[in-house]
């Protein structure tokens, strides 16, 4: 006969508390702690060197006021939004979804090949991808070589179209995630519903928009949020490809934050920018969640 340990409710709760403790502590130390420190330091003038390195002063909202008065901030914010929308939302997700949708009923070999190619991009370390695209878009790089072959004059991609180059690199890098998420979600769409809709006379497009997409709302929200947050924080790829340049043409909020904190040593200012990135991310996530809820998802 098996012995069952009948724990009282209190004991159960105690058990739960101790079992959760290690993870909660890890989260507190590595997540909440730094966030609170960032919040605190963004209200000071702490810098990496000089007198403010140890004699920092509390300056209230001055960092934030400075940020909004900074003439570069508008361009940096615009770059960030363009990068986010074009490479994250439109690029990775639409591209990922289209691939997943089109791959649905194709042969296994094709699915494997496409899947593999995209995943290779995803698992490639950022720096490697950055150098790869640097070589691809360089003045004497692969793309210009192809152009030359077709008799088209070369373009200085990283100088004339830096944001486009960086966006393309990011789409290549991240689409795999969206594709895999949508693949899994599409596999869960029961074929019976689709057949029923077809018998009712719906064409392919109507099936897609009226049946499939609504059923994918949950997945869409999740991928939207995850892709947005990771694209907002994208740093390595852009920094290694263009350094944020030329000028500030590819400087996004995260690159700007790095430059302010580590190139000009104004750590407090950099932290204020970090906080802004966080706020933007949270706001966008809330918007996504609200918009999907308001459309009456069951």
């Amino acid at each position, binding site marked *: 006969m098996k012995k069952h340990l009948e724990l009282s409710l209190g004991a159960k709760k105690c058990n739960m508390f101790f079992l959760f403790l290690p993870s909660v*502590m890890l989260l507190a130390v590595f997540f909440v702690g730094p966030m609170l420190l960032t919040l605190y330091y963004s209200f000071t003038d702490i810098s990496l060197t*000089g*007198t403010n*390195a140890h004699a920092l002063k509390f300056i209230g909202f001055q960092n934030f006021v*400075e940020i909004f008065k*900074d003439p570069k901030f508008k361009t940096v914010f615009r770059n960030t939004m363009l990068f986010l929308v074009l490479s994250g939302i439109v690029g990775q997700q639409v591209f990922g979804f289209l691939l997943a949708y089109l791959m649905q009923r194709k042969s296994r070999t094709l699915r494997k090949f496409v899947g593999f190619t995209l995943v290779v991009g995803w698992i490639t370390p950022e720096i490697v991808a950055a150098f790869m695209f640097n070589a691809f878009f360089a003045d004497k790089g692969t793309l210009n070589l192809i152009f030359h072959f077709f008799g088209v004059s070369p373009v200085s991609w990283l100088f004339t179209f830096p944001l486009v180059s960086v966006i393309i690199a990011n789409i290549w890098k991240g689409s795999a995630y969206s594709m895999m998420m949508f693949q899994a979600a599409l596999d869960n769409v029961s074929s019976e519903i689709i057949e029923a809709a077809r018998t009712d006379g719906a064409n392919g497009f109507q099936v897609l928009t009226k049946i499939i997409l609504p059923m994918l709302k949950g997945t869409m929200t999740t991928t939207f949020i995850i892709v947005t947050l990771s694209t907002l924080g994208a740093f390595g790829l852009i920094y290694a490809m263009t*350094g944020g*340049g030329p000028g500030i043409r590819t400087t996004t909020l995260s690159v700007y934050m790095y430059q302010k904190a580590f190139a000009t040593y104004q750590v407090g200012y950099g932290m204020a920018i970090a906080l802004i990135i966080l706020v933007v991310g949270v706001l966008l996530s809330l918007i996504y969640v609200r918009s999907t809820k308001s459309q009456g998802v069951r």
Partner: protein
Amino acid sequence: MLKRFLGVFLCAAMVFALAGCANTTKSGSTQSQTEDENKVIKVGVLANWVDWVKEKAKAYEAVHKGTKVEVIELVNNSDLYSKTTMMMQSEQTAPDVITEDGFMVKADAAGGYLMPLTDVLAGWEESKQFAPTIMEGGKGVDGVQYALPLSTDVQGIWYNKQMFAEAGISVPFEPKSWNDILAAAKKLKAAVTTDGFVPLYLYASKTYPEETSMRTFQTLYFGTGEDAELYDMNAEKWVVDKEKLLDVFRFVDSVYNTEKVGPTPSFAAQSGIADLLQSDYMKNKKVGMYLSGSWESSNWAKGKSHEWADGLKVWGFAKIPTKDGETPGYTTMSGGWTWAIPSKANNKEGGIDFLKFVCNKDNQLEYALQTGNLAVRNDVMNDSSYLSQEMAVTKESNEMLQYAHFRPSVDGYSQVTTLYTDCTESIAIGAATPEQAVDTFQSELTRMVGEDKVTVK
């Protein structure tokens, strides 16, 4: 039973994972641990000189049996300075002695990262050999000596004597005004039709922040007139001199945009330019003039990375003139590196001992001969082997020293220098006209240091 065991095991594993966050501070260390630390000296050195310092480390270890010298390489890229400062912030990463770029001394000393060397130098006979003016480069804002000068240098115009002769420009090249430089560049451009040829290489990119700020912007700025200053030491204010700024920006504009005798902005922004120029472009007639430091030829010496016996037969080093030849006639910037002891070093005695060793006369002489940098010790400066070096422009450089200006490395310089780079780059990439750059300069400087710390002329 198995489930419960698994549960307990996983919990324990999670807790052990926390041990990975353990802080390996020396507080509460045992006696034997302290003894071990005293036997290791960590030396942080700029990548350019790491091979030489490794040799010195071996020599030191041979004399001091039982001591190990660990050489830490500081990679020379645009993040070098912030990395160095961050290294010195914690006891775990701070070396015991480190090479510190001269212009960072004041800021890092004010930040509390450097140990004062007053006592060390007082008890060291050889410290008297260091020229007082050069020692200024290692002092903090409070006048305390925080770093010992290791080298100094000057900026000039490297020019290809052969290509000049072929283009019909008289050699030796002795420009008396900025227009002379532009004229020579234009002649080169007309005479050389190879694709990708750079008549005049002028640093103007964020990829090379301090190079652009110091070698291009500040060198030219101090050549606009005797009264040119970037920082008013008496009033303790940063200066915005619109006329002089316009002069500098207009020159950069001429080079990059109007006359197009400079590199293409995308070429200027790629990494590893110095190596590319020394190993390829300067050897293969792909560049005509190069505004840079006196050490550029040192890598052509025997046994160095880009050995080229004909280096100084082909290339000459000219003084940079003031804008229209006004007094004093020439301008240059003197940089300079130093050795410092981080205040958070674990083995300060070891660091100090190694410092004295590596800065003694023989080693300083060796260093100067190896790197092509200018000496800072009087006894080295007068040494015959120093004066008769093969692949160094010592004679020309010594002549330039009297016209040298120094970076205003006061508190806030680390920010302001990025402004100098940004404005210069904006002209080169065509994002701003000289007039716009001057306006940006004024508004950004005011934003950075505050209105009460800026004086506008």
